C-alpha cells in the first residue's frame, strides 16, 4: 500500500500526528468495527465457505464453480454484462466529459449551475423508480418519445425490448440516473485546473478544442479513471434493471440476464445456495480486486 502514502501535499497532519495516550481510539471505532465485521467480513467469509462446500457442508473444491460455469445461462450472462459495460463506460466517458467541458465554458454561471442541477435530478430516481419511468418511455403506446421509437421502426413494447437492444437500453437507464452526479464531479475537477494554465494556452493560440484536448482532458485523467473504475465495478453488479424488465415482459426479456440474477435464481429458484455463493464470490473478487488496486495504485486516497 505504499503508493497510498505518496500523495501527501496539503496533508500536514501526518507529520504532526501526536500519539494520544490511552486506547480511546478503539472505543470510538468499536461500533463501526462491529458493523464492518458483521456486514463486511462475515458475509464474505460465509460466501467463500458456501462456495467451497457442498449441501452437507463437506469440502467440495471447485465443483460449485464448475456447476455455475457449466450452466447454460452462465457464459451468456458474462457476455451480457461485458457488452453492457462497453456501452455504459463509453457513454459515460464521452458524454460526461463532453458535457462537463461545455458547461465549464458557459459564461453565465447561473445557467451552468442550473443545468448541472437539472442533469442531476434523475439521480433521485435511482433504483426501481428509474426502471418504471423507462418502461413507460420505451413503450411506444404511451412514450413521450414514441415518434422516435416509431421512426426507428418499433411499434410495440416487445419490439423495443428485443434482446439485442438490452445493453443499450440498460445503458440509457444507467446514464440517465447516474451521469448527472458524475458531471457535477467532473465540473468540480475542471474548476480545480489553475486558471493561469488555461490562460497561457489561450495566449499561445489554443482554441476551445485544443485547450480541452491538450490541457483539460489530460488533467482530468485521474478523475476519468476514478469514474470508469467505479462504474465498471457497479456495472458488473447489474441487477435491478434486467430483473424489473423481465417482470414487465413476463420473463421474455432480461431473465437471468446478469450474473447477480443468476446467483439470485440459483439461491431462490434452484435452492442451490452453494452455486449461488460461488457466483457471488466471483463477483466479490472482481469488486474487491478493482477497489483494492485502485486504493493502492491511484494515489487518489491518502490513507497516511
Amino acid at each position: 500500500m505504499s503508493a497510498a502514502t505518496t500523495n501527501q501535499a496539503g496533508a500536514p497532519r501526518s507529520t504532526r500526528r501526536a500519539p494520544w495516550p490511552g486506547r480511546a481510539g478503539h472505543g470510538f471505532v468499536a461500533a463501526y468495527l462491529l458493523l464492518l465485521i458483521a456486514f463486511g467480513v462475515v458475509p464474505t467469509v460465509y460466501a467463500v465457505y458456501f462456495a467451497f462446500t457442498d449441501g452437507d457442508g463437506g469440502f467440495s473444491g471447485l465443483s460449485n464453480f464448475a456447476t455455475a460455469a457449466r450452466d447454460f445461462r452462465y457464459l451468456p450472462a458474462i457476455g451480457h454484462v461485458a457488452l453492457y459495460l462497453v456501452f455504459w463506460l463509453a457513454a459515460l466517458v464521452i458524454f460526461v466529459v463532453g458535457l462537463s467541458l461545455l458547461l465549464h465554458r458557459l459564461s453565465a454561471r447561473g445557467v451552468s449551475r442550473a443545468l448541472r442541477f437539472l442533469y442531476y435530478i434523475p439521480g433521485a430516481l435511482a433504483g426501481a423508480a428509474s426502471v418504471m419511468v423507462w418502461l413507460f418511455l420505451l413503450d411506444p403506446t404511451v412514450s413521450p418519445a414514441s415518434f422516435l421509437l416509431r421512426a426507428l421502426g418499433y411499434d410495440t413494447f416487445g419490439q423495443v425490448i428485443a434482446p439485442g437492444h438490452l445493453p443499450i437500453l440498460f445503458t440509457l437507464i444507467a446514464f440517465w440516473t447516474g451521469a448527472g452526479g458524475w458531471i457535477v464531479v467532473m465540473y468540480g475537477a475542471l474548476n480545480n485546473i489553475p486558471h493561469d494554465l488555461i490562460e497561457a494556452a489561450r495566449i499561445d493560440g489554443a482554441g476551445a478544442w485544443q485547450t480541452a484536448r491538450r490541457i483539460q482532458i489530460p488533467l482530468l485523467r485521474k478523475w476519468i479513471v476514478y469514474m470508469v473504475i467505479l462504474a465498471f465495478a457497479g456495472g458488473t453488479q447489474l441487477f435491478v434493471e434486467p430483473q424489473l424488465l423481465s417482470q414487465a415482459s413476463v420473463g421474455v426479456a432480461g431473465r437471468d440476464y446478469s450474473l447477480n440474477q443468476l446467483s439470485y435464481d440459483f439461491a431462490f429458484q434452484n435452492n442451490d445456495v452453494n452455486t449461488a455463493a460461488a457466483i457471488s464470490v466471483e463477483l466479490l473478487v472482481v469488486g474487491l480486486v478493482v477497489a483494492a488496486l485502485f486504493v493502492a495504485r491511484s494515489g487518489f486516497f491518502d490513507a497516511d
Partner: protein
Amino acid sequence: MPTDTRTALSHAAPVAGTRPPGGERTRRRGHLARNPLPALVLALFVVFFVLPVLWLVLAATKTDDQLVHGNPLSFGSWHALRANWDALTAYQGDAIFLWLRNSALYSFAALVITLAVAVPAGYALAMTEFRGRRTLLIATLVVMLMPNATLVVPLFLEINAVHLIGSMWSIILPYSFYPFGVYLAYIYFSTALPRDLMDAARLDGCSEFGAFRRVALPLAAPIVALVGFFSFVANWTNYFLPYVLLPESNQFPVQVGLGTLLDDVPQFNPTVGNLAVQRPELALATLLAITPVLVVFLFSQRFLVAGMLAGATKE
C-alpha cells in the same frame, strides 16, 4: 454552524462557482454566439434528463386512456389524479402507505445508527492514534469502493443462518454499515478540525471522550448533514437488499413495492385478473416513492456537490 462543508473541504473539494470571473466573459459569449452547437447540445440533454421526470408527473394526472391517446405532455385532470390516488391507496388496503412507512423506518433508523457510528469512527481515524488504524482506514476505502450489491447474496446466507430473515433489523443493520460515511467524517475531521484545539482541550483536562463531545462534536454539524444526506438517499433507493432479504409484502420498502405493483399492471403482465393496477397509478406510486429524495435534493444541493467531490479527493 458557521463552518460549512465548502470551507471544510475546500482544499479537497473544488466547489462549483469558484472560477474567477473576468474580462474573458465577453469573449466567451461572443464565441458561443458564433457557434450555437454547444448550446444546442446542452439543451438537448436538458430534454433528455428532465422530460421523463416531467412526463412522469403529468402521467399521474391522467386516465390510462388519456395516457395512450392524449398529448404526452399535457395535464390530465385533477379528477383523474384523485381517481388514481384512490385506486392506488386502495391497492391491497393502503399497501403504498405501508411501503412508504417501511422505507422511512428503515432509512431513518439506519440514518441514526450510521451517524452514531460513523462520526466517532471518522473522528478516531483522523484525530487519534491506535493500533490497526491504518488497516481500518484502508479496509474502509476498499469496502467503500465496492458496489453495495456485491454482498447481498452473501448477506442473505449469513442472515438466514442466524434466523433473522424477515426481521426489520436484517435491513436496518446492513444499511447502517456505511464506510463512505466514515470516510467523509474522516476527511472532514482531518481537514477542518485544528489539532491545536484538541490539544488545548486535552491540556484543560478534558478526557478523550470529553474532547470529542465538547469540541469535535459541536463542530461536526456539516458532516452530520453530509453523511446523513448520502446515507438517506442510498438507503431509500436501495432495491436489491430488501428484495432478497424480505419475504413478506407488508415489510417491503416502497422500491420493492413498486415491483409488486408492476406485476399487477395488465399492459406489462397480461395474466393479472381483477387485481389490475392501471399505468397512471403506477406512475403516481413512482412519484410518491421518489418525492422524499427529490425534496432532499432540492434542499441540499450544496452538500451534494461538496460530498461527491470529497468522496474522491485528497490533493
